[in-house]
């Protein structure tokens, strides 16, 4: 007992000196028992951080890191028939970042299912978004057996994560009419290819245009963002900012219309005319105002 006390005390000192804080949940907590399945630690490491994510997903790691990747736990299950299921649980720093990563890999042609906030199946894989987690389930076993196994493991992992369902709020701002389903995205860095533009929520519309919302902390930040972007795009704003609509002739992306809306920079590109842009952005503005008033 004395030895244990000494060990704990010395480690407490060690930890304090090392500025240690709480870490993630243990792997065992993320991979619960699943009836009819046996949990198997994967060959190699079962835990990855930003430093070694490359070891498991190679160059794809960059996108995860840009989207606030925190860590990854890996677990595998087998059943008596030899079906294998692998679960990769990616934790991100926020729900928005998890959605950002999920949206980068989502494709509207997939078969969407009710799991987590949203999920989909494809041949031998099942991916879903769940709060701050992006979960990727896969199996070498095809057909109904593999799918059934992935669903069982996916549901169990979802329960173990204890996350609230729901999309990042800015996605609700986009007008529903004409919006292409399952094509919304969140771009954490370099939206439209510019360093100045980050944290953009984007929706695509059947008419071919894209609308975006960039939440900011203050109207001053919104104004500065618009100016910096316009200058980088080769279309600097001269004089005062127009109150209604700012027209940026982006040398790479075409004409981009912007509106400064209190703490949001909103915009549209791919729109055939200024009138069209005005009309669509007004609808977006109405919804942002509506949601803001509800808070």
């Amino acid at each position, binding site marked *: 007992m004395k030895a244990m006390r000494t060990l704990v005390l010395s480690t407490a000192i060690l*930890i304090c000196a090392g500025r240690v804080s709480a870490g993630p949940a243990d792997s065992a907590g993320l991979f619960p028992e699943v009836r009819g399945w046996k949990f198997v630690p994967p060959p190699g490491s079962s835990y990855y951080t930003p430093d070694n994510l490359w070891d498991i997903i190679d*160059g794809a790691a960059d996108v995860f890191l840009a989207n606030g990747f925190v860590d990854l736990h890996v677990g595998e299950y087998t059943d008596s028939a030899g079906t294998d299921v692998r679960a990769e649980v990616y934790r991100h720093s926020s729900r928005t970042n998890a959605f950002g990563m999920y949206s980068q890999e989502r494709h509207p042609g*997939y078969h969407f299912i009710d799991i987590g906030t949203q999920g989909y199946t494809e041949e031998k894989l099942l*991916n879903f978004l769940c709060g701050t987690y992006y979960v990727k389930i896969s199996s070498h076993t095809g057909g109904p057996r593999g799918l059934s196994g992935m669903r069982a493991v996916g549901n169990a992992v979802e329960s173990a994560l204890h996350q609230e369902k729901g999309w990042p709020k800015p996605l609700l701002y986009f007008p529903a009419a004409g919006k292409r389903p399952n094509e919304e995205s969140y771009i954490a860095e*370099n939206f439209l290819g510019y360093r100045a533009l980050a944290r953009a929520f984007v929706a695509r519309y059947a008419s071919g245009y894209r609308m975006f919302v960039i939440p900011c902390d203050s109207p001053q930040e919104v104004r500065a963002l618009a100016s910096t972007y316009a200058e980088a795009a080769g279309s600097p704003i001269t004089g005062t900012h127009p109150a209604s609509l700012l027209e940026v002739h982006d040398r*790479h*992306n075409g004409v981009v219309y912007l509106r400064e809306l209190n703490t949001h920079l909103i915009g549209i590109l791919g729109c055939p005319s200024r009138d069209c842009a005005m009309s669509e952005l007004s609808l977006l503005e109405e919804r942002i105002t509506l949601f803001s008033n509800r808070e």
Partner: protein
Amino acid sequence: MRRFSRRGFLKNSALGASAALFTASPVSGLAGRWARQEKNTKRLITRRLGKTGIELPVVSMGVMRADNPALVRAALAAGMRHLDTAHGYMEGNNESMLGEVLKDYPRSSFVISTKVPPMDGASFLDTLDVSLRRLRMEYVDILYVHGPSTVSDVLDPAILDALRKAISSGRAKHVGVSTHKKEPDVLRWAAASGVYEVVLSSVNFRQDHYAEVRSAMAEAAGAGLGIIGMKTMAGGFYDRLRTRPINCKAALKWVLQDENLTTTIPGITSFEMLNENASVNEDITLTDEEKASLALAPAEGGLYCQGCGRCTALCGRRLPIPEIMRAYMYTYGYGTPRNARTLLRDMGAGADPCAGCTSCSATCPKGFPLRERIRDVSRLVDIPEEFLA
């Protein structure tokens, strides 16, 4: 990497819905831009990719993170010819985006590579077919086996046979292997294979074993292999929180001082980044300031173990010291002792792996005090959960 094919994706959507994801160029005058690209190419520094005979500017585009078609067009307009992607990037959306963009360009105007993870031969070729359909191409210029790091994977007869079939069937012009682990070994295995023509290797100024990598690159180049560099920016930041950026332009120039490296594929996601990298295509001379910025780098590596494994070879008990050093970094660098404990428990390390050993022979090329660090961090194995909360 996932090790199975994605045929279902293809059935559903590769050509149809994916095309809808990426809008056509909003900027007109493609032919004009192409003409400018030809003009630009004349003043760029180029090198030959081994026996493939392909001539490339020294800086190319890693597309893995780019989701903006305008960025790819701008890279081509800036004179870059080589675009690198992989089957798995963005679950296929990356290849689909490239296919949508490149359909407007003459096929001979760009050199595209993709990567397929190791798997059985038939699945490997099926997976390549999915990639080709996403890319809307009859062939890729370079087909890599994605990321093998053991001799059995690099020289797997089934994979080598699949690569030969990819060439004989016209689906790939050249074949290679990509690696970011055991680079010197992979370069040598590839050279000995008689099949691989290109190696895509990690190479950067922070590699402790850079001298070995450089030596192996020289041998491989001597054997006719073309060598392309990746991870040249060493992650882009010195720290995990990405607050201390590396001078990426300097890092890029630094690796290009070795002429055995034909080209590099830095990931490009912004026009600013593109302009900076494209400027290196015209001048790879390191300024004094750039040299100084890289010289500061060794001081940043106090906790980061690069996993060379020399310590384990010297350790009488063959302890997995690189993994234990990683656990040490989690604890003292990142403040996540639970992560460290998970790692230690996963590897089966006890609370005092060195107990009873009186003649430590393990040493670290970076000078880490191994025994001390092993002793300090291994104690976490026995710490009750509540003390780490």
